[in-house]
């Protein structure tokens, strides 16, 4: 059984905007799935339909075999949602918010309080549990929404840009938390603009653009299609002119840092010879970390994503 089955899903809003044009995709149980796409691609509409916040125009969505359209209540009992926008009562306190949310899933206050403490502690928010939530920082508010989404211990956790605006340290601790949840069997669907995050965490990926799925594969296969590698090179002296080498594309980052992109089949010796001939001494070299971002941008630039 799939955790999520979306079949030929279409959504046209009242203003005529066609947000989804027949989206179909399946997410395996236990998967860590990335749903990527540029702004306005239809990601949030798709998530809205899965979580029943948006009505469909046509098509079906099933969560663990239960149709969201036919058996909404049962389907919703499997889902935990962390939305993109803050959507909790800012006058309430974190503990109160989470315990109330649990109540909507039929969880008693006693059990909910224990679970709320567990998740607030795991997300390093327990010391704020009794403070008005409007006083929390942006990162804390996002973590509060994750704790709230976990209180019903969902089988499918949907995270819509959960780390937007969160500093790298907190972001990494959130990754650990979400990875642990996935390791314990929860299926996770993640949308993010930090493609490094998707590459780090997700096993399968769908890319959506203009309301259509343009890529749906596993992360390894997708990254394998990237035949160009980019290296970042630190040069001893300020660079005045970039060398010209066949198959290698150079880009200046700053006066002593350059990027070199070359096909995987091209020997690195070619690169170093060219740099040596141009009188550039390389102090250090590293692989540009975010391969997925590179691929994503190439797809967009080449107009593959129509």
């Amino acid at each position, binding site marked *: 059984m799939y955790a999520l089955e979306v079949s030929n899903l279409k959504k046209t809003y009242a203003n005529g905007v066609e947000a989804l044009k027949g989206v179909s995709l399946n997410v395996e149980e236990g998967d860590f799935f990335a749903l990527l796409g540029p702004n306005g691609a239809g990601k949030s509409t798709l998530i809205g339909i899965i979580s029943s916040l948006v009505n469909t125009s046509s098509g079906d969505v099933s969560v663990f075999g239960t149709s969201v359209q036919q058996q909404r*209540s049962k389907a919703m009992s499997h889902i935990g949602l962390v939305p993109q926008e803050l*959507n909790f*009562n800012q006058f309430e306190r974190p503990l109160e918010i989470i315990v109330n949310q649990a*109540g909507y*899933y*039929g969880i*008693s206050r006693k059990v909910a309080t224990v679970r709320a403490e567990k998740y607030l502690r795991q997300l390093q928010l327990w010391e704020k549990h009794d403070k008005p939530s409007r006083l929390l920082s942006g990162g804390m508010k996002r973590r509060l929404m994750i704790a709230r989404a976990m209180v019903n211990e969902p089988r499918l956790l949907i995270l819509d840009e959960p780390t937007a605006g969160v500093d790298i340290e907190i972001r990494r601790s959130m990754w650990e938390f979400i990875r642990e949840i996935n390791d314990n069997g929860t299926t996770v669907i993640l949308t993010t603009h930090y493609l490094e995050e998707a590459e780090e965490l997700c096993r399968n990926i769908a890319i959506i653009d203009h309301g259509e799925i343009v890529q749906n594969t596993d992360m390894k296969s997708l990254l394998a299609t990237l035949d160009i590698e980019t290296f970042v090179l630190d040069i001893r002296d300020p660079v005045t002119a970039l060398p010209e080498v066949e198959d290698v594309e150079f880009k200046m980052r700053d006066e002593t840092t350059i990027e070199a992109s070359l096909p995987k089949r091209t020997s690195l010796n070619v690169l170093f010879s060219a740099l040596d001939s141009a009188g550039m001494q390389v102090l250090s070299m590293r692989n540009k970390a975010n391969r997925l971002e590179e691929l994503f941008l190439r797809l967009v630039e080449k107009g593959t994503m129509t």
Partner: protein
Amino acid sequence: MSARVNWTGYKTIVHKEVTRILRIWAQTVVPPAITMTLYFVIFGNLIGRRIGDMGGFDYMQFIVPGLIMMSVITSSYGNMVSSFFGAKFGRHIEELLISPLPNWVILAGYVTGALARGMMVGLVVMIISLFFTRVEIQHPLIMVSVLLMTSIVFAMAGMVNAIFANKFDDIAIVPTFILTPLTYLGGVFYSISLLPEFWQKVSVFNPILYMVNGFRYGILGVSDVDITYAYAIMGVFGILLASTCLYLLHRGIGLRS
């Protein structure tokens, strides 16, 4: 969904609503208490002494049921419309919309919250009235049933208003231009027998007249209208509004895109 989930969900909504009412007690309970005290002092005491008897009671006694009912109507409606629209505006209504709770549980929870505020305010106004006059309750069951039904009807009317409202101005229009005039013209301060015949005939189309008189009958034992009509009208409005609320929640109008 199981009855246990629905029951726990219902209790949670009520708990959340009552907590909200008590947290902002200075906005929810105190203002009607002050307003009604002024009504008792000015209309009941100062002006009422010159008016004399009405319906066989002194004027202060006559307006007690009307003022209690007026504050219950305003509070029940106001609680629903401000709480539900606030949740919609702040998007935390989504906490409920993504939950497994069926729409009737959401409606029942919010209506009970509004009922709780209506009863709290009604009780406070009743206690205040004891500082000005004494009344002997004639039909306690009628008094309580009319009060509860009225509160439920106006709570549901408040939900319809909140669902269609897009901005805070929209939740002030109905109370200002419809609810307040109908309440003032609904026999709170006078018996319709004092009105010219034409206005008596117009008044019978005002549903609040039946609610106020039904409640007055419960307390004082006198009414301008047949009490059976009061129950019938509240029943019909109750069914119509409950159906409307459930339909709107089901379609997600104003709530789901």
